[in-house]
């Protein structure tokens, strides 16, 4: 859910196939067991807000 709306509905086994930028952003921000990363990506909330407006327009 994002901004009070269901933006995507997928099964727990299909997270890699998510298409909505919010879902993809959440998945990207998870740390990975086998990767040594300097920094984790975080959600760009401004970009998501723009996407939300365009999506409804």
């Amino acid at each position, binding site marked *: 859910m994002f901004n009070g709306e269901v933006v995507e509905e997928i099964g727990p086994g299909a*997270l*890699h196939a998510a298409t909505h930028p919010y879902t993809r*952003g*959440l*998945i990207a*921000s*998870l*740390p*990975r*067991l*086998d*990767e*040594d*990363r*300097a*920094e*984790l*990506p*975080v*959600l760009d909330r401004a970009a998501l807000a723009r996407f939300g407006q365009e999506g409804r327009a």
Partner: protein
Amino acid sequence: MIQVDDLTVRYGPTTVLHNVSFAVAQGESFALVGESGSGKSTILKALAGQVDDWSGQMAVGGQRVTRSSSRAQAAQIQMVFQDPYGSLHPRRTVDDALSEPLVIHGLSERDARVLAMLDAVGLARRFRFRLPHQLSGGQRQRVAIARALMLSPKVLLLDEPTSALDVSVQAEILNLLKRLRAEQRLTFLLVTHDLPVVSFLCDRLAVLRAGRVVETAGVATLRGRALASDYGRELLASCEGIV
């Protein structure tokens, strides 16, 4: 920086830690992993002087932890909890929370120190006089981290610091902790059940089960899914295939 030797802790008739030993070097980040009830949080409490019935030896920064630790010792080691809502006073502002340690320890230039710390933890200065309920979960955890750092401690004890946050806010707080550790040359002792978090934030880990350390390993071993103990392998299996 942290030395724990042969630590045994009892709660009444129950022994919750059995002869636990490990050492954490200065600037190192060390994780204690294991499921609920494995005793990992009890180790943090013992180091913070919050456990009465214990035996063995513990030292932080070369100073032995005793049953009556001094104020100067207490300032060296600070704790951050899972739920910042529970650790922040509901009717005290962010400014109160950050100023209090300075008042207790008689430190001056409080305004400048509070503002500098808000900047350091990425909290806008306009939040300075807000109450905890006026903040998001991530903002509250930034306040808890800021408060822990007000006395420039050498060691942070982190008890599941991001497990109550959604994954995007967790990423922000993990990035913050990693940056602060490098900037302030902090030593971390992190309690968690989340192995990917250990992979991101830590150099080494100890696996605990039923109050005993069953394995100590470097983070490369964790990333290679090569933990040797049965229980370590069970924990690895339980985090397969999440994404």
